[in-house]
C-alpha cells in the first residue's frame, strides 16, 4: 500500500513539476500575446497584477492533474490514472494553453471538478448534492458552453450509477436554478448576452465562406443553371461548413503533428507523435472491451465537448479543443497499458513499444530544443 502510494505521489509530483516547468518556461521564454479582456477581469478579481491570470491558469492545470488522477483512479485503476496524468503533464498542449492564459484550461478544470464531485465517496446525499451543485453552478455561470456540458455530465454520472436518483434530482434542481438565473440575466442584459453568443458561436461569420457562396452563385447563374439555387445556397454551404469543422476534429493530424499551430505560432505538436499508436489501440480497446452504456455516454460527451471548437471560426481552434484533452489522455493510457501487456507476449509488440518509447523521448528533446531556440523567433514573426 505504502509502495503504491509512493508511486502515485511520485507521478503526481512529477506531472505537476512538468506542467510548472513547461508553463513557466514557455510563459517566460516566449512573449505571449497581450492579455485578453478576461485576463483583466481575473486580475481585477484576484490581485491587480497581470501575472495573476497566468498563475491561475497554471493552478487550474495542476488542479486538473489531481482531478484527472482522482477520476481515472475511481473509475478504473491507479496505473491508468498515473499514466493519464503523466501524459497530461508531459505533452506540450497543457503548458502552451496555460502559458497563453487560455480560459479553456479553466473550463477543463471545472469539467473535471464536476466529474470528481460526482465520484466523491460521500454518503450524505445532501452534502454530496450540494458540492456537485455548487461546482456545477460556478461552471455554468463561467461559460455558455457549460450550459450544455454540465447537465450532460451530471446525467451521464446518474446513468452510470455514480449518483443516486435522489442526488440527481437535487443536483438537477440546482443546475436548473443556475440556468434560470442565467436566462433571466440574459434577458435583462440582452445586448451583452447576444455579444457573448456571437463571440462564442462565430463559425458562420467567416467572410471566406460567404465570398465563396457569392462567387459560386454568380458562376452557375452565368452558366444558365438558375434552378441550382434550390440546392446550391447559403444553407447548403453553411451546413457543409459546420459539418467540416466538426469532422476535422476527428483527424489525427490535428492532435499529433504541428499541422495546426498552437496559439497560432507554435511548431510543437499538441500531443507527441509516438502516442498516436497507443491512442488508436486505446480507442480500439475502449470500443471492444467497455460496456455499451459507457460508449454511448462517452460519444455524447465527446460531441458536446467538441461543440465549442466546432462553432469557432478559427480552423482548427486548438484552444477550445483543449476540453477534449483529458479524454484523449485516458485513451492513450489505455492503449499504453494494453501495449505493455503485449510486451511479454509478442516480439513485434516489444519492438514497437521500444520504438515508440525512443520516438517519444526523442520528440520531447526536440520540442524542448524548439521552445528554447526557435519558438521565440516564431512568436515574434507571428506578432
Amino acid at each position: 500500500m505504502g509502495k503504491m502510494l509512493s508511486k502515485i505521489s511520485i507521478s503526481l509530483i512529477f506531472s505537476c513539476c512538468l506542467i510548472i516547468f513547461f508553463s513557466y518556461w514557455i510563459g517566460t521564454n516566449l512573449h505571449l500575446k497581450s492579455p485578453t479582456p478576461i485576463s483583466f477581469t481575473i486580475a481585477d478579481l484576484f490581485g491587480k497584477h497581470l501575472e495573476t491570470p497566468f498563475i491561475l491558469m497554471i493552478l487550474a492545470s495542476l488542479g486538473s492533474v489531481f482531478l484527472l488522477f482522482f477520476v481515472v483512479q475511481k473509475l478504473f485503476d491507479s496505473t491508468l490514472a498515473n499514466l493519464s496524468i503523466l501524459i497530461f503533464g508531459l505533452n506540450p498542449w497543457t503548458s502552451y494553453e496555460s502559458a497563453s492564459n487560455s480560459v479553456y484550461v479553466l473550463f477543463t478544470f471545472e469539467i473535471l471538478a464536476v466529474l470528481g464531485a460526482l465520484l466523491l465517496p460521500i454518503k450524505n446525499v445532501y452534502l454530496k448534492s450540494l458540492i456537485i451543485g455548487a461546482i456545477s453552478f460556478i461552471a455554468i455561470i463561467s461559460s455558455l458552453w457549460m450550459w450544455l456540458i454540465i447537465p450532460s455530465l451530471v446525467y451521464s454520472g446518474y446513468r452510470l450509477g455514480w449518483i443516486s436518483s435522489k442526488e440527481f434530482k437535487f443536483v438537477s434542481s440546482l443546475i436548473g436554478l443556475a440556468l434560470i438565473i442565467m436566462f433571466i440575466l440574459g434577458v435583462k442584459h440582452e445586448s451583452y448576452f447576444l455579444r457573448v453568443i456571437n463571440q462564442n458561436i462565430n463559425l458562420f461569420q467567416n467572410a471566406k465562406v460567404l465570398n465563396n457562396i457569392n462567387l459560386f452563385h454568380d458562376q452557375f447563374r452565368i452558366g444558365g443553371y438558375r434552378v441550382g439555387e434550390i440546392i446550391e445556397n447559403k444553407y447548403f454551404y453553411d451546413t457543409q461548413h459546420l459539418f467540416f469543422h466538426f469532422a476535422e476534429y476527428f483527424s489525427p493530424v490535428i492532435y499529433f503533428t504541428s499541422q495546426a499551430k498552437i496559439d497560432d505560432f507554435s511548431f510543437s505538436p499538441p500531443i507527441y507523435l509516438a502516442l498516436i499508436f497507443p491512442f488508436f489501440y486505446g480507442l480500439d480497446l475502449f470500443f471492444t472491451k467497455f460496456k455499451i452504456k459507457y460508449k454511448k455516454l462517452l460519444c455524447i460527451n465527446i460531441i458536446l465537448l467538441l461543440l465549442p471548437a466546432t462553432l469557432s471560426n478559427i480552423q482548427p481552434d486548438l484552444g477550445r479543443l483543449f476540453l477534449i484533452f483529458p479524454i484523449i489522455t485516458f485513451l492513450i493510457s489505455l492503449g499504453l497499458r494494453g501495449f505493455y501487456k503485449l510486451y511479454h507476449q509478442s516480439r513485434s509488440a516489444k519492438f514497437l513499444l521500444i520504438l515508440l518509447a525512443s520516438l517519444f523521448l526523442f520528440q520531447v528533446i526536440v520540442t524542448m530544443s524548439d521552445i528554447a531556440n526557435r519558438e521565440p523567433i516564431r512568436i515574434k514573426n507571428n506578432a
Partner: protein
Amino acid sequence: MLKPSKNLVFITIFILIFMLGTFLRFVNFTNNPVSLNIDEVAIGYNAYSILKTGRDEYGLFLPLSFKSVGDYKPPVLIYLTVPSIAIFGLNEFGVRFPVALLSSLTILFGYFLFKRLTDNKTIALLAMCLLAISPWGIYYARYADEATVALFLVVVGAICFFKMIDKHSLSWQVLSAVFLGISMYCYYTERLFVPILLGILLFSYIKQRKLTFKGCLIFLVTLGLLISPLILSTIFGPDKTRVATTFITNDPELQRQVLTSQNQILPNSLFSFFDNNLFLSIFYGIRKYLYYFHPAFLFYNGLNMTIDNSYGLGVVYLFELPFLLMGGYILIRKKIKSKLIILSWLLLGILPAALTQNEQHSLRTLVALPIFNLISALGGYDLFGRIRKMKVNYQLAIGSGFTLVVFILLVHAYFVFSVYFKYQRGEAFMEGTKQAVKYALDHKAEYNEIVFDPVRGVDGPDIVSIPHMYVLFYSQYDPSIYQTEMKRYGTNNQDLYGFDKFTIRHIDWPTDHSKTKTLFIGSPWSIPLQDIPQDQILQKIYLTNGKLALIIAKSD
C-alpha cells in the same frame, strides 16, 4: 450459386454500372477540362512524333524516358497514345481517349479485384458502383495523365497476381509480372508502391505456403528483367533528375522551415544531435502523410477543382463518410479474407505522395482509389444490412434522408464538374492558348516573326507555359523537320527559344513594339493595353470566367 433470374439482374446491374462509369468519363471530355494542359500537348506531340518518325521531339529513338520540357515523362502513356493519334488524329480526342478508355476498363477489372479481395459479389458490385461514380476517378479519367493508366495496370496486375496464387500457372506468373512491371514504367508513385506491396504480399503468401518457390522465382525473374532498365535509369539515368526535383526535400514549406531553423542551435550540443534537418524532414513527411486522412482532402477540396479553401469536391463523396467509418471498423475488427492486402494497399498508396513536395496531391495518391471504394462498400454493405433489420418506419426515414443527402451532394458534384471547374481552373489548363495559336497559324504568312510570351496569369505573371508545344501540336508540325531544323537560343542569359517563325521569349513592349512585321502574343502583364493603339490590338482572348487572359497585338 445464383439463380438464373438473379444472375440476369446481376449482369444487368453490372453492365449498367460499367456504362454509367464509361459515360461519365467520356461525356464532353474534349471540352471539359476546357483546354489541353501543358502535359497533354507534350504527350500528344511526342506520340505524334513517335508515330511519324519513331523518335521523340529531340530525335531520340523510342526512348524509355521522354525529356519533353525537362520533366522526363514516363513512357507508357505516350506509347499508348500513338495508336489513338493514328486513328483519331492529333487533337483533343486523340490525346484524351486512351486514358478515358483505360479508366472505364478499370471499373470492369475493379469488380474482379474487389470480388477476389472480399469473396462477396454484392460488396464487389457496390465497390464497382462507387468506383464508377467516384469524382476522383472521373476527374483524372477526363484528361491525359499517367496515374490513371498506372492504376489500370496495377489493378490488372493484382488480379493476375491473385490468379497466380490460386492456380500456380506460368502464364499468370508472367502476366502479373508484366502488368506490374509496366505500371512502374508508367508513373512514379508505382515505382515505390508496387515493390513494397509485392514484398509484403510475397512474404505473406510464402509464409502461408500458398506460393511455391518456383512460382515466386519465375515471377521475380520476369519482373526483374522487365524493370532492370528502369532501375538503371532511375539510379544513373535521366529519371534521377525527376525524382530529385520532386522529392520532399524540395518542398518550399520544408525548405522555409529548414532555413529559418538554421543558426539557432549551438553546434555540437545535445540539442543539435537530435534537432536537425534530417529529423525535421522526417516529421514533416509524417505530418504530410497523416494530412491525407484529413476531411479537407477526403471530402471537401482534395481534387482542387475549385479555388483554394472553397467547398469543391474531395476525393470521395461526403455521403461515403459513414460507409468509410464503418468499413474501417470492419476492416480492423472483423475477419476479412484479404485484410493485410487492403490495409497495405491503402497505407502504401499514400506513402509516395507524402515523400514528394506539394501539400496534398490527389493524382499521386490515385493508386489508393479502389481501396477507398472497397472500404466504403464494406461499410455500406454492413450498414444497409443493419437498416434492413430495422422497423419499416425507420427504414423509410433513414432511406429517404440518405437519398436526399446523396441527391444534394451529387447535384453539387455536377455543378463542380460542369460549372465551377471551368470557371475557376481554366487557367491551370492554359485556356486560351489554343485560340491564340490558331490565330498565329492562320496569319503566319503575314509576319516575319511571331513572338509568344511563355509567362501568363490573370492575377499576376506567375504561370509558365510552353507555347511552342501548343504551336507544334495545333500546327501538326512535321516531327522530322522539328527534330533536325536549327533552333534559336538566347544569348547572354536571355531566356529565348525559337524555331521557324516562332520565338518564345519575354515580351518587352517598350522596345519590342517598333519591330517590323512582328506578331506578339502575351498576357496583359507583358502587352500593356493602355500603351497600345487600338488598331494594333488584333484580338483579346478571355477565359470562361470573363477575365482577360491573352492579347494578340502587332508591331507598329
